[in-house]
C-alpha cells in the first residue's frame, strides 16, 4: 500500500516537472529581453529538473521490481536534486553579473538603472 502511494506521488511530481519544463521553454522563447529570460530559465531549472529528480527518487523507493539497487537510484537522485538546487541559481547569477558588467546584453526597456548610478555612471 505504501509502495503504491509513493509511486503515485512520484509520478505526479514527474508530470509537474514536465509542465514546468514547458513553461520554462516557452518563456525562454517568447520573452523579449535577456534579463527577463533569466527568470524563465531559473524557473525551468528548478521546476523542470529538481522536482522530477525528487519524483524519480520516490518512484524508485516504491517500485520494488527494480531490485535492491533501487536504493542507490533514490539516494543519487536525491543528492543530485540538492546539488542542482544550489548550482543552477549560482550559475545563473554568475552569467547575469558577467553579462551586465561586460555590456554584452543591453538593459533596453529600462526606466531606472540604480546599479549604474551607484557605480558612478560607469
Amino acid at each position: 500500500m505504501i509502495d503504491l502511494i509513493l509511486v503515485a506521488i512520484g509520478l505526479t511530481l514527474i508530470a509537474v516537472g514536465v509542465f514546468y519544463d514547458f513553461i520554462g521553454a516557452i518563456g525562454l522563447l517568447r520573452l523579449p529581453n535577456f534579463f527577463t529570460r533569466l527568470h524563465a530559465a531559473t524557473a525551468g531549472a528548478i521546476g523542470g529538473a529538481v522536482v522530477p529528480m525528487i519524483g524519480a527518487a520516490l518512484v524508485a523507493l516504491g517500485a520494488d521490481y527494480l531490485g535492491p539497487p533501487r536504493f542507490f537510484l533514490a539516494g543519487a537522485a536525491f543528492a543530485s536534486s540538492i546539488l542542482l538546487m544550489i548550482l543552477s541559481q549560482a550559475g545563473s547569477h554568475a552569467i547575469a553579473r558577467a553579462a551586465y558588467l561586460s555590456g554584452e546584453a543591453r538593459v533596453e526597456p529600462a526606466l531606472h538603472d540604480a546599479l549604474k548610478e551607484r557605480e558612478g555612471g560607469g
Partner: protein
Amino acid sequence: MESIVTSVLTVLIPLYVTSFLIYVVRVVKGPTLPDRVLAVDSLGYDIAAFMVVLSILLKSPLMVVCGLSLALWIYALDIYVAKFLEAREMGG
C-alpha cells in the same frame, strides 16, 4: 506496478523531447552570447533530470550517475564563460 510506471513514463517522455527542441530553438536564435549560455544551461539541467527518469524506464538503476556528472560539468561550462566575459571587461 511495473505496467503503471512504464505506461505513464512512456506518455511523458515525448513531452520532454518537445520541450528540449524548444530550448534548442533559443540556442540557435539567441541574439547575444549570454542568451545562448543560459539556454544551454537550462537544457543541460533538464537533460540530467531526463537521464534520471530514463534510468527507471530502462530498468538499470546504476546508470543514474551520468545525470549527476552532466549537471556538474554544465555548471563548470557556465562559470568558464562568465569568467571570460568578466576578464574581458576588466581589460585583461
